């Protein structure tokens, strides 16, 4: 395996009118690594993912995927290369049953190329592959759940469905936008091993999270964003000990003191 990073972002900048949403953010993700991105609300985490996957256009900066410049490619071409993403606000196909949701990514050019799961006759092979993937991701195969309409599924399953859609593409890297948010503690507890298994399968992950405890269990490298700027990058311990990070989350020391006196 080469030591070249799988994903490299150089000076990504995005402005919305006069607002600087991302200010020259640079980072890289190594092969098979989990990188955590944290930061307060509005710090540009989701914008960063949107820029990398071309769902919004970057103002300036460059993105390299396996050494290839992808900063000018359209979204579907980027996903086609194996750089997939989940959405923070889940985007299932509500009018289709859960397993039929996976027929769509399995129909994509990348899945046709990488999967080789067209074999199996004419009798709904994509359907069975879809159910296989759903089982892998935590839908009980023998229950009714995979056959239910996506509109009737609870949040936990929809988050899994988001991941399943990425897995159907046999991704090389998944950008997860808050997969733990909105889940109960027990649902999160069952998601963590899933994330660990993805890593063992050699898939690199970028995880945006607010649930730090769970994130630190899986990610060994954390990047902190605040107001569109990269504050610091390092191990969870280093990051949490950093003064600037504390300030970003809790305000400056004086402010904290002030609040604490009233508390």
């Amino acid at each position, binding site marked *: 395996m080469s030591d070249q990073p799988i994903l490299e972002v150089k000076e990504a900048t995005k402005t919305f009118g006069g607002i600087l949403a991302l200010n020259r953010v640079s980072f890289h993700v190594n092969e098979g690594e989990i990188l955590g991105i944290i930061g307060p609300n509005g710090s540009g985490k989701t914008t960063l993912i949107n820029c990398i996957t071309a769902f919004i256009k970057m103002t300036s900066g460059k993105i390299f995927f396996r050494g290839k410049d992808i900063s000018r490619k*359209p*979204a579907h*071409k980027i996903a*086609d290369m194996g750089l997939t993403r989940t959405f923070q606000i889940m985007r299932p196909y509500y009018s289709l049953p859960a397993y039929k949701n996976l027929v769509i990514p399995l129909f994509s050019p990348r899945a046709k190329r990488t999967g080789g799961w067209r074999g199996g006759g004419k009798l709904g092979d994509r359907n069975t592959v879809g159910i296989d993937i759903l089982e892998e991701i935590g839908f009980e195969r023998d229950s009714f759940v995979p056959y239910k309409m996506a509109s009737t599924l609870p949040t936990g399953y929809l988050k899994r469905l988001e991941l399943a859609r990425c897995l*159907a593409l046999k991704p090389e890297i998944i950008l997860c936008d808050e997969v733990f948010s909105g889940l109960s503690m027990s649902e999160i507890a069952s998601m963590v091993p899933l994330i660990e298994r993805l890593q063992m399968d050699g898939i690199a992950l970028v995880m945006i999270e607010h649930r730090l405890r769970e994130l630190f269990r899986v990610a060994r490298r954390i990047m902190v964003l605040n107001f569109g700027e990269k504050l610091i990058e390092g191990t969870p311990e280093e990051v949490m000990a950093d003064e600037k990070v504390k300030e970003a989350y809790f305000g400056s020391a004086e402010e904290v003191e002030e609040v604490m006196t009233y508390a």
Partner: protein
Amino acid sequence: MEQRRKERIDRGIKVRTDGLYALMSWRELGYLTLPRLVLIVGMLILPFVMPSMYWQRVISIVCIYALLAVSFDLLAHFVGLVSLGGALFIGVGGYISAIMNTSFGFPPLLAIPIATIAGAGICTLLLFPCLPLRGVYFAIVSLMYPLAMARVIEALDILGGTDGIMGIDSFPNRWIEQYFVILMVLLFLFGVRRLVNLDLGLVLRAVKDNDQAVRASGMNITFYKAVAVFFSSAMGCLGGACLVHIYMWSGISLFALDFSILPIAATVIGGAGTIVGPVLGCLILVPVSELLRDFGTLRIVFYSLILVAFIVFRSEGIMVYGQRKYHQIERWVKV
């Protein structure tokens, strides 16, 4: 006072006919096939039961509108593109078939398939620029083209100008004419029903449901929208091509907005998203509009009243209502 509510339960036979079990008995098979057979046989015997030449001609017009309505339903309710381009499809298909017939001497049954494919290609190309956009742009652009086309032909005096192209061959005889359009309606009706349940059709429905997720799945949504527009405009162009051979004349009235609006009304009456509903809607609306011809210009008023009544009292559409009655029993239960 005791309160009651209506409860709906699937009929036993409906549950038994889900899946392979339907093959177990004739009764279940009958339950499944009867509605389809009624439609198919009904359409096929229509030319025989019609009293006069005039009404037989109406059947052909019904079928052409039915093709347009199916094409509208496919685009609007399975791909999410509201198309007002019925007149564009009819006009392009009609003019191509007319030119093929008069200038190149192709017989109608050869000119029609050519017009279908070539017309669909041209319509797709024309509409392609607004496919990457979301929102009402598709509706606006597809409405603009037929208006513009008619004016262009008028102003430049090309393709026969305001006189139109005359001397187009008709079908060999009126039985072939009627059965050709009826069979085409049945073919495309069941074809589209099949298409929306194929994997390709699922992708189209996904584009309607959530196009961003389709992009995230590594698929070019513009391409799939173009595929859908191609299928849809092929149906419209086929209708237009048949129409010029029925009238033996092709003029700028092919771009009349009737062809855009009536299919939408038929879809509302028949039941949106059911595919067969729009065909039923046309079977009702077009003859009604012919019957109202006696009223002269008041026709539009009555016509509108019928539409309004449908929208107020049966906004779900005949087909959705019928399916519910066929599959479910309703009863009042105490709350």
